[in-house]
């Protein structure tokens, strides 16, 4: 399948990107420094280490997704390599999805690396392998799937700098949904409130992928939550990718 050919090629190219390794280095640094942070805090130390590790994976993973994702399509257009590609029997949608898949594979590898280091650091504290952390990483990865799709979407029509800002905006909006909640509760019932409710349903709620607290405090998740969150991620990602394909399809490559 041509999508896989593009994906494999994108993976090989992304894996060579220096930014990736810089970010990986910093994530390792922060994970290792979790130990130091634990000393400075007012809470349970082991929990702090776990929390910082998961936060690092989430944060640096998001940075990777955004920084590389926003350049993905733009580079091909800018460097004109896309001209030769389009002359082959390759649908534009296949090209785009192949790029997305390639980056997702790259992120999977990076996240796996960060997770291994995290498990090692936590192991040094608790002398057990905290498998529970893997479920948190799974959810983080779901978030990265969506974030990558958003980065690729913006990459289709905008320069890397602007795309990064937009994608970052998406990330911030996604994590501050509780602000909208407060606003909705304070708004008197009426058209305004209904509009806000609609907005709330449609704007991304990335906190649905944040089960750090549950994992760190060893709390149970409500039944069906995993499936629900996965479903949310898949549907939202599909939505964003479809949008990207539609925009990409009608674009003139000047």
């Amino acid at each position, binding site marked *: 399948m041509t999508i896989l050919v593009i994906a494999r090629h994108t993976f090989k190219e992304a894996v060579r990107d220096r930014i990736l390794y810089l970010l990986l280095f910093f994530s390792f640094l922060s994970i290792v420094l979790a130990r130091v942070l634990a000393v*400075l805090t007012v809470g349970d130390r082991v929990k702090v280490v776990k929390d910082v590790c998961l936060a690092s994976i989430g944060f640096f993973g998001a940075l990777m997704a955004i920084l590389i994702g926003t350049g993905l399509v733009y580079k091909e257009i800018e460097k004109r390599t896309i001209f030769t590609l389009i002359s082959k029997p390759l649908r534009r949608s296949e090209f785009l999805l192949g790029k997305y898949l390639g980056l997702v594979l790259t992120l999977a590898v990076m996240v796996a690396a960060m997770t291994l280091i995290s498990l090692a650091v936590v192991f040094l504290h608790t002398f057990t392998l905290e498998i529970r952390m893997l479920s948190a990483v799974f959810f983080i990865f779901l978030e990265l799937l969506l974030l990558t799709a958003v980065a690729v979407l913006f990459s289709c029509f905008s320069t890397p700098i602007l795309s990064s800002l937009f994608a970052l905006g998406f990330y911030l909006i996604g994590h501050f949904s509780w602000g909208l909640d407060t606003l909705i509760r304070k708004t008197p019932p009426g058209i305004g409130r209904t509009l806000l409710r609609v907005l709330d349903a449609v704007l991304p709620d990335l906190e649905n992928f944040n089960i750090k607290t549950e994992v760190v405090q060893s709390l149970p998740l409500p039944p069906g939550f995993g499936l629900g969150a996965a479903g949310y991620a898949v549907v939202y990602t599909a*939505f964003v990718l479809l949008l990207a394909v539609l925009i990409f399809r009608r674009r003139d490559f000047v």
Partner: protein
Amino acid sequence: MAGKTSLAPAALLLLLGGLAGFKVGLDGMPRAKIPGAGIVYLPSGPAVKAAAFGFSSLTADVSYVWAIQYYGNTAVPDRRRHFNRIFEVIADLDPSWIDPYLTAALIAHHDFRDPELALKMYDDGAARNPEAWIFPFEAGHYCQLYLRDYERAKGYYRKAMDLPGAPPIARRLFANAAFKTMDYQTSWETWREVYETAPDREIKKIAGNHLYNIKAAVDIAALNAALERFREIRGRPARGLDELASARLIAAVPKDFDGKDYLYDPKTGEVKTAVIPWKR
């Protein structure tokens, strides 16, 4: 290809509906509430400020909004644990922002029923903003209204009334508090100031009433002491206030603020004012 294009908007709408559906479903699922509700650790104020990269004010805003939501959520138990720290962080981020201190005091009072904590919030605000009249002002009110502690209220009002921009009522509240703590001298002097510098008749009247009250209180206290002394010496209650004067227990019979006489009822031994002060 053309067929695909017409399907696309429908597919988009379908997906949009799908994700909204999932979101609503997920919102409905209750996530466990735990003590501290997810605050595993709190960095210190200076640390957060450093991490805010110059966006301290914005970070303070966001933290404040979050804190309100957090403390407004009565379902979360044990919110008290990090209360100090949270508001300390907000204060470190934006020390001159008034609202958080005031809100914190309210939370301390209403949610935690801890007056000293509430006053601490006001004091923190005052410590970081020594020129702000609002903090001792609000603290004075708090002492007066909730604690009925006029002594402390007096202290707070004293601080507030001299700070730049303080409303004139601060002075009057101070005078009133002084009266309530029986510091008649201070009260008198302050009310005299108010009386002299009154900008309108209303204030002058109020000040006048207070002055009347103070004089009456002082005079009546002195008269009562003299009457008591008279009874000890003569073995009987005085027949009139002038008896006290002739007995040289008082220098002269005092008149009230308006120059009128006080009323003495020999049968009950009570000294009263001729008029009700507020109805002069």
